[in-house]
């Protein structure tokens, strides 16, 4: 197992107490400066030799070189000749022993086909009438002699002969790996017990002083004790890690986090309050998820839970702590609610769409009271911003809010679109805000995520005027790309809420997924959000440092 270190000594004997190969090698190296293993241990398979040599070499007790050799060996036929003699020898032998062999008998001899011609050529036998007789008392069978030499020494001296025999399929060659071993820098004739790790016992009994530590493999990877890319550690989701970075940026810039626990919102808050006309394409079934059950929303009104949470977070920086007893948030929320007239708000929204109001000529279409009641899955968290900004009209003052949460679009799913994604949204309300101020703020904001330079393009958005798309240079694509949207909320939206005309409000937003995908070179959003995300990616994703990457 990788990295397992234990105090178990490496056993000296692996073969049941018999003298083992490592000891034999040590013996041989002790006696001879260079030990060729194929000569010293001809019977031992090469694999075993190597394993033993590696054990010794890892302790630097011996060193060895590897040699690739080619050796000549006999084929099956070659072996028969080495054992029994060549075909021509067998023919001669048969004739010699018989004294005379009939033509018919010689033809029946098994070696006759290959041997007769050569025996005649060598003048060992000759035809005598209708039979065969020997010409020599004794003969030297050169083929057999040479093959016997090959059998013993695995070489052939004469290359021409070797070629001839190879062609006659009497011999062939094979590759042989052999080793030449010699003493290493830490030569010792005996293998000492090695320990792989320092243990409590060794410290207690002092044996660490004499212990022989096995060298650590510094090329191997460390371990956390488990499997998988995270090695059994826990991990936070990469998208949530990026989300956390954005939250920190907002907190550093003094923003208060808005409550967003509302996947479902009404047409009123999601569209009408934001001055999105009722015939706007964004309200189409192809773009927005509508809810069939529950059937419809109630009239716009206060949400005591939201108001209490907001009251608990609000800090009035000018408040004199000594004079004002701190009211409990629920009571303060009630106080806020009592100053808000939701009926008037609805009527204002209706009027500013249908007839025009607050210096606007309006869209001049018949406002349908059914549309605000339709329940939708929020298409943006701007529905929440609208609620929070209306609440602000109870006590209009400069403030900064943000949220990062899930939104829903009835998109056809592809590599860059999911029906769900996260929206990052920021809202700044203050007096005397300017358009250039929004650009300056956005430059600061995006500098925090390592985007140094921005360009701003005039754009259309129903609830902001002016509206600006935010562009930044994309190194990979070698062009500027849109990274967010921004603007100043329309008077039709803010004045209908009852906010004072001189309190201007910036709004800006971007998706959490897009900058994450750009930063990490992810081309498919499904690799980042949803159940198809690779767990290994979650576990192995480095810490997020947007300003440095």
């Amino acid at each position, binding site marked *: 197992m990788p990295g397992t270190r234990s105090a178990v000594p490496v056993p000296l004997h692996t073969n049941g107490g018999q003298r083992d190969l490592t000891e034999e090698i040590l013996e041989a190296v002790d006696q001879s400066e260079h030990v060729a293993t194929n000569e010293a241990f001809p019977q031992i398979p090469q694999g075993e030799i190597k394993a033993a040599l590696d054990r010794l070499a890892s302790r630097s007790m011996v060193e060895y070189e590897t040699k690739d050799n080619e050796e000549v060996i006999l084929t099956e036929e070659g072996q028969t000749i080495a054992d029994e003699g060549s075909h021509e020898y067998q023919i001669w032998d048969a004739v010699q022993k018989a004294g005379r062999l009939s033509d018919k008998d010689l033809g029946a001899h098994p070696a006759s086909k290959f041997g007769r011609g050569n025996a005649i050529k060598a003048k060992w036998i000759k035809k005598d009438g209708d039979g065969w007789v020997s010409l020599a008392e004794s003969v030297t069978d050169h083929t057999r002699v040479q093959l016997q030499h090959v059998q013993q020494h695995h070489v052939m001296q004469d290359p021409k002969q070797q070629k001839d025999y190879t062609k006659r399929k009497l011999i062939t060659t094979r590759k042989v790996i052999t080793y030449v071993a010699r003493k290493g820098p830490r030569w010792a004739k005996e293998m000492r017990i090695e320990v792989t790790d320092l243990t409590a016992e060794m410290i207690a009994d002092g044996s660490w002083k004499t212990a022989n530590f096995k060298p650590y493999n510094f090329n191997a990877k460390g371990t956390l004790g488990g*499997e*998988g890319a995270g090695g059994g550690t*826990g*991990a*936070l*989701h990469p998208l949530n890690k990026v989300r956390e970075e954005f939250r920190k940026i907002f907190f550093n810039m*003094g*923003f208060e*986090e*808005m409550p967003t*626990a*509302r*996947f*479902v919102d009404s047409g009123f808050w999601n569209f009408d309050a934001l001055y999105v006309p009722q*015939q*706007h*394409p964004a309200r189409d*079934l192809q773009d927005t*998820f509508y*809810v069939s*059950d*529950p*059937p419809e*929303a109630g*009239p716009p009104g206060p*949400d005591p839970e939201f108001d209490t*949470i907001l009251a608990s977070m609000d800090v009035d*920086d000018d408040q004199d702590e000594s004079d004002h007893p701190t009211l409990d948030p629920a009571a303060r929320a009630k106080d806020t609610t009592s100053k808000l007239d939701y009926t008037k708000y609805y009527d204002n929204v209706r009027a500013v769409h249908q007839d025009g109001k*607050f*210096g606007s*000529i309006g869209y*001049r279409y*018949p406002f349908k009271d059914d549309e605000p009641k339709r329940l939708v*899955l929020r298409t943006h968290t701007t529905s929440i911003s609208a609620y929070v900004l209306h609440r602000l009209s109870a006590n209009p003052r400069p*403030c900064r809010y943000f949220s990062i949460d899930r939104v*829903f679009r*009835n998109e056809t799913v592809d590599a860059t679109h999911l029906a769900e994604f996260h929206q990052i949204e920021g809202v700044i309300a*203050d007096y*005397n805000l*300017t*358009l*250039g*101020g929004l*650009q*300056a*703020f956005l430059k600061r904001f995006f500098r925090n995520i390592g985007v140094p330079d921005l360009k701003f*393009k*005039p754009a*259309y958005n129903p609830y902001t*005027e*002016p509206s*600006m798309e935010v562009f930044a240079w994309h190194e990979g694509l070698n062009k500027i790309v849109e990274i967010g949207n921004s603007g100043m909320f329309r*008077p039709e939206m803010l004045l209908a809420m009852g906010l004072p005309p001189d309190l201007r409000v910036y709004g800006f937003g971007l998706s959490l997924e897009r900058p994450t995908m750009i930063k990490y070179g992810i081309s498919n959003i499904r690799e980042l959000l*949803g*159940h198809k995300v*690779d*767990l*290994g990616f*979650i*576990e192995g994703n480095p810490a997020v440092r947007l300003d440095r990457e």
Partner: protein
Amino acid sequence: MPTIGVNKADFYKALGKEYTKEEFEELCFDFGIELDEDTSESKRPMVDGVEEAPQLKIEIPANRYDMLCFEGIAMNLNIFLGRQPMPNYTLKPPSDGQLQTVTVSKETEQIRKYFSCAILRNVKFTKERYESFIALQDKLHANLARNRTLVAIGTHDLDTIEGPFTYEALPPEQIEFAPLNSTKVMNAKQMMEHFEKDKHLSRYLHIIRDSPVYPIIYDKNRTVLSMPPIINSNHSKITLETRNVFIDITATDKTKLELTNHIIVTMFSQYCEEPFTVEPVKIVSEHNGETRETPDLTPRHTQASASFINSVCGLSESREKLCKSLERMCYKAKPSTTDEDKLEVDIPVTRADVLHEADIMEDAAVAYGFNSIPRKFTSSTSFTAASLPINKLADIIRLESAMAGWAEVMPLILCSHDENYGWLNQAPKDDAKPVVLQNPKTAEYQIVRTSLIPGLLKTVRENKRHAVPMKIFEVSDVCYQDPSKERKSRNERHFAACWYGKSSGFEQVHGLLDRVMMMLKAAFVTKEQGIEGKGTEGLGYWIEEVEDPTYLPGHAAAIYVRLAADSKAQRIGIFGILHPTVLKKFELPFPTSTLELNVEVFI
């Protein structure tokens, strides 16, 4: 956003300059439109055996109906570049002073009550102009007119018809004519059946199909002009040779009715013998008080405050300079003689997107250059940051779970009904019904999840190649119906975890629960202590065996908490070994244990 294709060579000719791609992109960027594609860079479709001429595909903002055609984009850019002034559109009645009239019948109120009209005299069409004229109508129908539901346009060769005209609403059986590009005379009922199969027109049939009367326009000889919003008659169709164009517009929305009229006549009156003149038509519509002459091309007069514009843009421009800027955005503007701060502004009929002084202010900023205005951010006070309590709590649980060796996942919130219920051997509870979607595009998205468990199990299913055990968790919202709320639903923050491995992992999910509880300072008490209010003074929790169809019998426990010694116990969750039938549904071969609880009680 609409994308308009314009002939590249003609367009650059209209702008008086051969732009490089970068130059043109920059111009678009400054003005607030976008070059989507330059087709000279790609293979173009073959039209009548010839490759289509290179086009610029330009994306325009959804509220700029005056840029839905070649003529409009070229005009707006030329004015922006200072190459031409905004034209003066004028009405020119016939020399005898006798206007064409259209009488609207009361019956039209039942189906499509508003009518508007205009005539363009002595128009010179070329192939390009003619095609642009048709394309503009298509774009208006698709965008402003919301696929003809709000507005429909008909254009006719006036020399083939004879006024006075009538706009009526008749039973379909009584309407008979040969529709455009056909010589076969049909009644309206047959026509509707005939167009069922027409890929283009079938989309509009629903607008009038079930009405007892259909809208219909006749000339004095009862020759049909059109049956809005479906089709024109073949008799009066316009051709390249048409000189006098009669334009009928019907609508259910009065504002968009006149706007459509304005856009068509302003874009194409430049091709009249006397450019930028339009012949008005008298509409007689006594029953609803809509008798008038159309179109009315008078610019809308308003005032804008120079100090407001300067203040929002962060500028200190003189009123004269601001007026010059506004003229580049199609306005006519001059400093007021009665008010030292005001500008007298005439908004042309083409600029229907201008609703408020804020729109004029934005145009001044665009003309000045968004990227040229001073960038200075000031703040009137200091601000104190605050994080949402529920997110702080969730972060504690997330970090502790990760430190305990579990990996965070983020599955989707929308799911199918089966995944959320049937596959878990559950059914919706009456007091916690799911939010159901009306119009999902796939069966994957039917409801908003009421449990985090399906997402976790799907994540494991998609990660079966990963080493086991897999230990994953999520802290996120689920959603239930709640009739007491304005939105009839409420989110609830849940914490869920899932173990998947060769052993059941029951102790592991239990251990994670104990760990998280410890970090939330909840003391473990026995069931008896919990019920009797003993064991701890503060927050206490205990578990109790429970039968639940999602889990293997005898291997599930309900989780209870008691916030303080004297408060009532609440059941907040459950954990256990999943029932093998559940595993089968989610295609999980190994034993799996899950944990899920509502964490809102710990805020």
